[in-house]
């Protein structure tokens, strides 16, 4: 086990909610307040991804743990930091949660349920939700459709919401993603393929999502097209590139007693 030294963290729960936040000062307080009222039993960490606004101060004022990155690393980097924090603090699962109020706190239970049932990566799907149909633009839905199709070909399984950022992670998944989580834009699909190819149990769960409270989708047009192509290529060539470390592999990290010098 890599639990390391007994952490001095203020862990009071089994599940950690990781909120990656980049210039999210406006929506963050209500998101945290909502989480607190809906799920008072969870610990929350905000990973401030080099924000230029008062994100860190606002989060601190809300009384959650804040990890501030020295400069903007993008969503992937912020998540990786959160994953490593979760591992080091000894949490038994973690949930990625959006800072802008897009995700529904009551749905966290569904993700936790999937993790407890043996999933390593539980993906919250807005399209599986029964009520409150989620609307996306036509270009976006076309791109999403293509991704969905490719993911189905690569994994042999049907995922309805491949770009969802509402996800739950088991401890082995956190350990794996702590170093291997993709760091470029649209990393969520890449992460799905990576985890599935590495032999992790990836499942989809129906969740509630609302339309974005503030701000729009961060990228559009040419940049989106570029990243889309990049992700397509990366998905195809990186399928199964990394394997889930077996329990036996952990022995490799044990110190070998061959330091006999004479």
């Amino acid at each position, binding site marked *: 086990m890599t639990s390391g030294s007994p952490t001095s963290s203020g862990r009071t729960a089994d599940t950690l909610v990781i909120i990656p936040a980049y210039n999210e000062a406006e929506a963050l307080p209500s998101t945290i307040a909502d989480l607190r009222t809906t799920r008072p039993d969870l610990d929350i960490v905000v990973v401030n991804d080099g924000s230029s606004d008062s994100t860190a101060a606002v989060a601190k004022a809300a009384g959650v743990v804040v*990890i501030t990155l*020295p400069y903007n*690393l993008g969503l992937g980097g912020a998540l990786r930091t959160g994953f490593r924090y979760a591992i080091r603090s000894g949490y038994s699962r973690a949930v990625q949660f959006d800072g802008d109020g897009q995700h529904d706190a009551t749905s966290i239970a569904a993700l936790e349920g999937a993790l407890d049932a043996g999933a390593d990566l539980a993906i919250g799907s807005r399209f599986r939700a029964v009520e409150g149909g989620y609307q996306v633009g036509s270009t976006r839905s076309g791109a999403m459709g293509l991704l969905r199709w490719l993911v189905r070909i690569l994994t042999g399984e049907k995922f309805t919401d491949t770009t969802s950022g509402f996800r739950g992670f088991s401890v082995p998944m956190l350990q794996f993603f702590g170093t291997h989580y993709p760091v470029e834009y649209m990393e969520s699909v890449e992460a799905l393929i990576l985890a599935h190819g590495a032999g992790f149990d990836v499942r989809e769960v129906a969740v509630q999502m609302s339309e974005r409270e503030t701000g729009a989708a961060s990228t559009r047009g040419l940049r989106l097209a570029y990243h889309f192509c990049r992700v397509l290529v990366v998905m195809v060539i990186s399928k199964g590139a990394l394997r889930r470390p077996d329990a036996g592999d952990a022995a490799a990290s044990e110190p070998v007693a061959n330091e006999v010098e004479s």
Partner: protein
Amino acid sequence: MTSTAHLLWVVLAVVLLIAIALILMLVRRRNLRSKYGLLWVAVGVALVPLAVFPGFVDWAARKVGVYYQPTVIMLSAIGLLILLAMHYSWELSRLEERSRTLAEEVALLRAEGDEMRSRLDSLESDGQDGPPGRV
């Protein structure tokens, strides 16, 4: 070959030698990592005989069946530069990954430090009434 052509080759050879000396100096001053320095020195050293014995290029071109001799130099130069560019991309990716991990670690350590400080503060204020005196 005319004497002006000979002069050109001499100038080229001198320029190369100066370039090599410059690279060695940069490495000596630690402005250039030795692995890159050595690479460029090797390139320079490989070019010196070409400058001194231009006949070699003509001979090599004939051997490979190239009519226009400079093409041989151009092609090998382009090949070498592409390899170098690829190497740099690789190196750059590795560096980015490392600086990223470093930034993440710094953030985690800072959060841990904050946590410890606040715990220490609460511990100290528990131990005695009033603010703890600085030692």
